[in-house]
């Protein structure tokens, strides 16, 4: 095992524009550094070999502010996982995101690591990504040609791959307001508390009386990217939500996923437990929507 990192050139841009300029000039072999909990171990393991490191923590437009706005919640890209987990606004209005981050074990990783960093790593086992998928989150992205909004739903292309170009930077996460009578839930299955998910699931469910008016279900670690299981959602929409229907939706979700066997689990086990987790998250979300 290597102990030290290979040398690289280090930049500390004072503005986003300067950061984007540096990334554009050295378009290959650059890496953006924020919390570093994923990046630094990968450098040490020689999995990546960037020549240029761009620390975006000092850029003046970058922050970790979490605030309510007219459109919903705004989370600055430097917000640590722990600051989002502990945010009263997240706990009150976007409980599914709180629950997802609370399931990550290490205090240090959550204190240092950012949610945006976790998302940009694009692991299908991310616990944050399914929660953001069901919350219909958007990213505000800055690049050489200005700003754009990217829905998290269109963000992932494959394992470790996103639509972001090398010279684009996420500056904030935007969470739209939720309807009244909406409940959310997140669950995951792990070997030990500190391990990465074998399977995870997040649900957002909105009820009007006894009828499901809207539902979104996302699962992780069961396909190359985190995944919305939309056939399962269709089973519930506009219907009276009863245990039998939840079971049918969970069964459909398990048919929609494309799991692989790896060191954490087998494909068969992941498919079986997708059914269980989707059933349980739906039931929990239903209780919370009614409450």
């Amino acid at each position, binding site marked *: 095992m290597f102990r030290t990192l290979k040398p*690289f050139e280090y930049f500390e841009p004072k503005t986003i524009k300067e950061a984007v300029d540096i990334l554009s000039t050295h378009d290959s072999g650059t890496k953006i550094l924020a919390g570093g909990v994923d990046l630094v171990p990968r450098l*040490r393991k020689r999995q990546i070999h960037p020549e240029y490191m761009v620390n975006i923590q000092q850029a003046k437009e970058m922050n970790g502010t979490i605030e309510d706005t007219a459109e919903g919640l705004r989370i600055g890209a430097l917000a640590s996982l722990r600051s989002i987990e502990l945010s009263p606004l997240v706990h009150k209005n976007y409980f599914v995101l709180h629950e997802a981050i609370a399931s990550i074990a290490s205090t*240090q990783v959550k204190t240092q690591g950012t949610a945006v960093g976790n998302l940009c790593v694009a692991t299908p086992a991310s616990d944050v990504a399914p929660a953001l998928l069901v919350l219909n989150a958007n990213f505000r992205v800055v690049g050489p040609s200005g700003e754009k909004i990217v829905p998290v739903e269109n963000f992932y292309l494959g394992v470790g791959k996103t639509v972001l170009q090398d010279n684009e930077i996420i500056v904030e996460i935007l969470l739209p307001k939720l309807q009244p009578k909406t409940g959310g839930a997140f669950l995951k299955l792990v070997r030990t508390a500190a391990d990465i998910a074998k399977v995870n699931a997040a649900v957002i469910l909105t009820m009007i009386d006894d009828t499901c008016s809207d539902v979104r279900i996302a699962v992780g670690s069961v396909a190359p990217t985190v995944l919305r299981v939309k056939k399962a959602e269709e089973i519930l929409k506009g219907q009276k939500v009863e245990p039998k229907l939840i079971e049918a939706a969970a069964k459909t979700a398990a048919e929609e996923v494309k799991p692989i066997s790896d060191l954490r689990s087998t494909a068969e086990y992941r498919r079986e437990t997708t059914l269980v987790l989707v059933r349980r998250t739906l039931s929990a979300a239903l209780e919370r929507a009614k409450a």
Partner: protein
Amino acid sequence: MKKEVVNLTINDTPYELLVEPQVTLNELLREQLDLTGTKISCAAGECGACTVLIDGKPMLSCCTLAATVKGKNITTIEGLAKNGELHPLQKAFVEHGAIQCGFCSPGMILTAKALLDENPNPTREEVKSYLAGNLCRCTGYVKIIDAVLAAASQMNKGGK
């Protein structure tokens, strides 16, 4: 490679240092400053042995570039005892046999300090959850959790 000037405070002592950008905070502490109380074990952000407090928050020195902690206030295990007197957490770890091989202890004690600074009266479950990122291969954790709870109760009584 161009070196970075890093001004920072470690255990109440100000430093002005020149570091290469690829040097981690762990290497800076252990190799440049000889503060070898901070350990390194997995070097991958999984075990917590390298934990230090940065502006009071528990972070992993193996995953932190030294160049990124300019202006910060770092506390390592060497900074906990005051005037030759051990911190209540250190005393409690000794008294409860929460130290066996000792390799996880600096990180464990600093994480526990961050917990007690945030929450002076944690439950047993809160201690377990907060320390989940610190692995110990000797104790089975029971004595560590006992020690943290004992230190909390001692500190709440105003004990030193």
